[in-house]
């Protein structure tokens, strides 16, 4: 389904709101993985507000599409999306990280409505996504599974075990995104543990790889539509080149904002930057 200018405008507005909510949640939480939350906002926004079939009033709807955010530390970038989608009131985000809150920094599928899989420990999302997708196929269901990986987490060998399985079992009802923001806790991915030639690795593991700008709705739309129309027996991976901290000028592409705290003054600066993004 090609995207219209009006849709892009609407998605941008939604993404701006989500970014503002991520900032507010980070302030309330006392600290969060804000950099990697910001880099995947467009991916999350287009999935939840253009593509996936879910019903916030019935979070366990049997034939809903499943979304697995494997980079579970970016929970602060997931919960505001779910709140904006209507799973729970936005005010609840203010309890993030607090004593006995349903919202820990790594979201718990048993406590947070709309979360299909608990993630946090890296390298767990893709294997479970392959299982979900195979589960749908085994039961003759049409719903799809969308998995969002971080690039740094692709150091974990379990991803490549799952990649082999996705290819071997021809799991084409799974669409995998990699949020390629080039940064991990200890520095640039290529300095800590190089991933390149990253696209070639996925291709070698049997995926069709579409490499795009992960902040561009037209490119995201084309890639997702391509994956939906895929009639080959190979799964599709969308390698999204992104900027960590996207939208907040003093955070962008700066490793120190993998995890950080912002006070209310800094939040004002952050929001001003987000607003300028348009």
């Amino acid at each position, binding site marked *: 389904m090609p995207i219209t200018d009006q849709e892009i405008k609407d998605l941008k507005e939604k993404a701006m709101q989500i970014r503002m909510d991520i900032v507010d949640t980070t302030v309330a939480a006392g600290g969060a993985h804000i950099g990697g939350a910001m880099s995947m906002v467009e991916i999350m926004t287009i999935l939840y507000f253009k593509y996936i079939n879910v019903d916030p009033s019935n979070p366990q709807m*049997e034939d809903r599409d*499943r979304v697995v955010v494997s980079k579970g530390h970016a929970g602060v970038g997931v919960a505001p999306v779910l709140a904006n989608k209507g799973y729970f009131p936005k005010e609840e985000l203010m309890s993030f990280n607090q004593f006995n809150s349903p919202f820990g920094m790594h979201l*718990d*599928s*048993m406590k947070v409505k709309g979360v*299909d*899989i*608990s993630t*946090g*420990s890296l*390298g*767990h999302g*893709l*294997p*479970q*996504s*392959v*299982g*979900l*997708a*195979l*589960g*749908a196929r*085994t*039961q003759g*269901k049409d719903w799809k*599974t969308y998995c969002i990986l971080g690039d740094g987490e692709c150091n974990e*060998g*379990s991803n490549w*075990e*799952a990649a*082999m*399985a996705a290819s*071997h*079992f021809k799991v084409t009802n799974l669409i995998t995104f990699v949020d390629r923001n080039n940064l991990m806790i200890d520095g640039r991915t290529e300095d800590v543990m190089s991933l390149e030639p990253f696209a070639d690795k996925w291709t070698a593991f049997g995926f069709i790889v579409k490499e795009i700008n992960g902040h561009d709705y037209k490119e995201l739309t084309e890639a997702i539509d391509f994956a939906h129309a895929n009639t080959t027996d190979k799964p599709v991976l969308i390698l999204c080149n992104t900027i960590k901290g996207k939208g907040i000028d003093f955070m962008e592409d700066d490793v120190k904002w993998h995890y950080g705290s912002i006070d209310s003054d800094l939040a004002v600066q952050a929001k001003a930057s987000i607003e300028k993004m348009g």
Partner: protein
Amino acid sequence: MSEKTGTTWTVYDANTLSQAEIYGQVLCDLGEQHPKIVGLSADLAKSTKIGMFGDKFPDRFFNVGIAEQNLFGMAAGMARSGLTPFVSTMAAFVTMRAAEQVRTDICYQNLDVKIIATHGGTSFGAAGSTHHCTEDLSITRAFPNMTVLVPADGIETANAVKASLDYPGPVYIRIGRGFEPTYYKDEEYGFEIGKAVEINPGTDITIICCGVTVLQAAGAAKILQETDGLSVRVLNMHTIKPIDREAILKAVEETRRIVTFEDHNIHGGLGSAVADVIAESGKGCAFEKVGIPDCFCIVGYPEDLYSHYGLDSNAMIDKVREIMGKDFEEDENWDDEV
């Protein structure tokens, strides 16, 4: 191989089929009745016998290759999709290679994944410590939501596999390599998850055992009765978690001496689970636990290893005599205690 397709097992079947073949066949039978059951393994479909399910239901069986992390991750995803996965590989790879997937993907999300862990304890004796697994009960006991079963033989394995299907949440079923002799004659003895089975009544001392030690304990109790006139209670504690507190406390009260035998490190397994209950009761009780003495085991045939580590009937007889010889004030009055 037997042509058996029924769902009830007898000593005849158990003697002609291995423990693992029995669960493979049980799973095939359950698979007929329950279309949501799927099977998974990691290049051990043949060794673990879950391949029998795969042969019968090729569209519901997934061999992921030698990749145990993905094995349990995929099982979790499948459970989340509404299926009931039975996963089988060697105990060492379930509980150590893929421990985090079992804990975080399956137990944390309280998913209906049933794990049949083969080659538990030292049952793969000659393979050495890379393939022994004398830590699994300790590891799985510490995972919230996990139920931990150690069937005594092939017949009890059949019961455990069937019971696990209706038991909510993840279940870990630890079996041996599959060639162990059987204790039970048939399935009709009242197997229930969480309830110990008293296989021999007794008032002088209680042996608490699980897995391969059950048959040995039954033999030891018989000889001790005949030669020493000792009345030895034997509890088959097939469920390590949730442990049957009531049966243990009853044994404390009524026999005042307890000894546990297990093919597992003495730390963290059956003996430790029993010790927790006794210690919390505040009741004095002569207590010993026998198992693998916190070491990496020597290699050898399993029967020789059981003998070496004090887990066969002869060693049990010696241990019971030793405990009975200890000075122990068994007539102490507990009425005024906390």
